[in-house]
């Protein structure tokens, strides 16, 4: 008997190899043709503690994490104890002999016989992939792709894998949980959300990033750094987040499409810079990877509680756009979109993600590298009126942008209110004209808003409203309700600002009951809907314990 879907949970202490086994397992599954959703849950420490890496894998599409575990891989005893209760009735435990308590469905692995200490990671990977029915050749290729094909370690890893497969194949077949094979697996990438954000940025022509490390945003700049030389990028670790955003603005003013990536506390330090971007009309993409606050909060967990903060960040009034990807593909495409928006409208654009999505590996169709043009939108020095005025008042509020040093035209930008030529002024008529000019950009931004996605029955009993990374959990919860006979629909927002009520009011009014599902305690998006569209969303499902929303969580909340 083979499975169409399995949820595999690997757990252990930090430093036990989870960070290696997890991504390798995900990659083996993706290469074998399965869809995956990875959920990483870890503590804010480098050694010890209790961390998990869950891979939900399916022959068909999987969109969200699930709570019930089919295969529990315990790298330490604590994992076995903590997660045994999450096993399905047929769930299997894979653990080292020494602490694998007896009973049915327990695979007690004699790791000491299979491999020497540091190669045990690969042995445990091999035991799991063998139980899942993945071919040994494929797993070996993935392992060699990671550790390299040369040196002593290669032989040792190969031997560990072979020993693991030989040992596992001899087990009672009732312990195996083979996934139904996918013939001709499509060529898909294994990417997490932050990697996709970095790739989306460079595909749009990003050339500059400054950052100060902060979980869960750091893997965005780290991904950029890994490809910096090949792609001609400049990435600099700044002395603090204030420096990071001001560096990015200096670079962008001088022509380099730029981004910064940070999380709540770091973003708080950047806020004055966000306002500077608005005033100097300097393009900038700001990636905010949310984690639970206030203050340092739960540094390595997830939440969707910085929506209002990011939306309002920056003193004074200026337009902005906020994108909230719901999948890893969207991380790529919406980051590209954010670059298009910020270059075209010369005002900051935000990508709001969170720890769950940042760390969630998925199977992703390769992006088409052909059609990817840089999104730079500079004016031609010959084409501008003389004398050049950086902040010329125009009908759509967007002034022709020249780069300093490329021609005799001088480019003057000021954080003070300024005249059209960019010099500081206290002329209040000039002030009024610049306020109105900046505001007019909002009209263009609104015309280009990505409408929310509506799926399901036209006049449902239940309509779920969601935004950002909770997309998959809500879609699956809705599908379960629908298959149980309730007329259900979902309304998902991938762009959360500006909001254009005409795009979705009809959907909200057509439903008997509207439920907003969000990863925060106070219902920030529901509040925004009331403010912007005048609709009261009476029911809410909120999660704020630091873990991602799951379909089970949503359905449980409806019952209670």
């Amino acid at each position, binding site marked *: 008997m083979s499975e169409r879907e399995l949820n595999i949970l690997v757990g252990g202490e930090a430093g036990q190899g989870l960070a290696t086994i997890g991504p390798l397992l995900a990659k083996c599954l993706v290469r074998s043709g399965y869809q995956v959703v990875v959920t990483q849950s870890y503590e804010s420490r480098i050694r010890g503690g209790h961390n998990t890496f869950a891979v939900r894998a399916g022959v068909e599409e999987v969109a969200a994490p699930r709570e019930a575990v089919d295969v529990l891989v315990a790298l330490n005893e604590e994992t076995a104890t903590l997660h045994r209760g999450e096993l399905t009735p047929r769930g299997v435990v894979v653990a080292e002999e020494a602490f694998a308590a007896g009973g049915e469905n327990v695979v007690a692995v004699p790791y000491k016989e299979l491999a020497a200490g540091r190669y045990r990671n690969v042995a445990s990977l091999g035991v799991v992939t063998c139980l899942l029915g993945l071919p040994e050749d494929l797993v070996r290729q993935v392992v060699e792709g990671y550790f390299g094909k040369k040196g002593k370690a290669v032989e040792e890893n190969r031997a560990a894998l072979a020993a693991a497969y030989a040992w596992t194949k001899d087990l009672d077949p009732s312990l195996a949980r083979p996934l139904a094979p996918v013939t001709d697996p499509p060529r898909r990438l294994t990417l997490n959300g932050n990697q996709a954000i970095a790739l989306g940025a460079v595909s749009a*022509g990003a050339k500059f990033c400054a950052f100060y490390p902060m979980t869960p945003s750091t893997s965005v700049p780290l991904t950029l750094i890994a490809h*910096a*030389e*090949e792609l001609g990028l400049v990435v600099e670790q700044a002395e603090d987040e204030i420096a*990071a955003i001001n560096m990015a603005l*200096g670079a962008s003013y001088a022509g380099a499409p730029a981004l910064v990536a940070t999380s709540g506390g770091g973003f708080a330090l950047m806020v004055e810079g966000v306002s500077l971007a608005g005033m100097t009309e300097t393009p900038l993409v700001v990636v905010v990877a949310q984690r639970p606050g206030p203050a340092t909060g739960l540094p390595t967990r997830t939440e969707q509680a910085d929506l209002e903060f990011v939306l309002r960040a920056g003193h004074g009034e200026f337009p902005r756009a906020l994108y909230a990807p719901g999948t890893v593909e969207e991380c790529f495409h919406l980051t590209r979109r954010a670059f298009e928006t910020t270059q075209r409208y010369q005002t900051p654009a935000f990508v709001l993600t969170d720890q769950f999505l940042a760390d969630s590996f998925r199977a992703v169709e390769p992006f088409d590298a052909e059609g990817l043009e840089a999104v730079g939108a500079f004016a031609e020095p010959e084409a501008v009126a003389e004398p050049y005025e950086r902040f010329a008042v125009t009908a759509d509020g967007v002034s022709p942008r020249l780069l300093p*040093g490329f021609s005799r035209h001088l480019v003057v930008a*000021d954080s003070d209110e300024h005249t059209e030529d960019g010099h500081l002024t206290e002329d209040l008529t000039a002030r009024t004209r610049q306020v109105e000019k900046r505001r007019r950009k909002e009209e263009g931004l609104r015309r280009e808003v990505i409408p929310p996605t509506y799926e399901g029955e036209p006049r449902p009993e239940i309509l779920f409203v969601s935004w950002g990374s909770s997309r998959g959990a809500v879609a699956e919860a809705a599908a379960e309700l629908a298959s149980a006979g309730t007329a259900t629909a979902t309304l998902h927002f991938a762009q959360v600002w500006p909001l254009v009520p005409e795009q979705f009011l009809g959907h909200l009014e057509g439903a008997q009951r509207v439920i907003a599902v969000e990863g925060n305690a106070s219902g920030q998006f529901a509040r925004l809907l009331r403010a912007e569209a005048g609709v009261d969303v009476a029911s809410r499902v909120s999660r704020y314990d630091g873990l991602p929303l799951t379909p089970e969580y949503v359905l449980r909340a409806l019952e209670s």
Partner: protein
Amino acid sequence: MVQAEDYGRYETAWCPGCGNFALLEAVKEGLARADLAPHQVLFVSGIGQAAKAPHYLNANVFNGLHGRSLPAATGARLANAELKILVQSGDGCNYGEGGNHLLAAIRRNVDVTMLVHNNLVYGLTKGQASPTSESGFATKAQPHGPTAEPFNPLAAAVAMGASFVARGFVGEGEHLAELIKQAVGWRGFSLVDILQPCVSFNKLNTHAWFKKRCYKLSEDYDPTVREAALEKAYEWGDRIPLGVIYRREREAFENKFPATAAGPLGVQPVDSEAFARILEKYY
């Protein structure tokens, strides 16, 4: 040849008699002597009376936030290493609000010239103590004088191994113009601390006070010896040295980024072949 006049003449918001006027003329003169045309030059500044100076110059300007001119200048330099970048700052802006960025800029050795209009007071906010205000300098905010000891920017810069450290005085315009010329010609980070009397709020360190104390370093002073430079940097009180205090050859920051070698980042295309190769790595 570029002329000082090419940098224009504008009406200013400064008080009559302020030391900033002479400073501005020295900047124009120094740039003209370095043969830099206005469109080749970018001034980056923060907020303060000093930070307004770029508005009174015909050049490219990025006038950003109080204390944040150095990071903005660093970003601009990385994006386009063909621009000659000068930062104009008050003593509050980069010795106070942006202090961390000053330390970082020295460590990085960004190719930027920082001109500090050091009036030993906060001008724009009307006379509070600044990081360089002397002990006993009483203000409405510090009725008994500053509560902290004054910051010695030159000593800090020398101690950190900054690439080019100098002091000028607006009362020595010709000397100052030469210093600025040298600083912009220097490859790496150059700090020129410029003593600039504030006639409105600093009645202690007046023009006469400086005039009496300032002297020019002699021809045979060797600015490449760090210990001697540190000693000069600490000289303050009865005698205040002017000139290049310290100089040290260092690799320029932007050389550490291979991407900057291809020219300004803003006009580099997306390398779609490289992008496709990179995607393969995630297969």
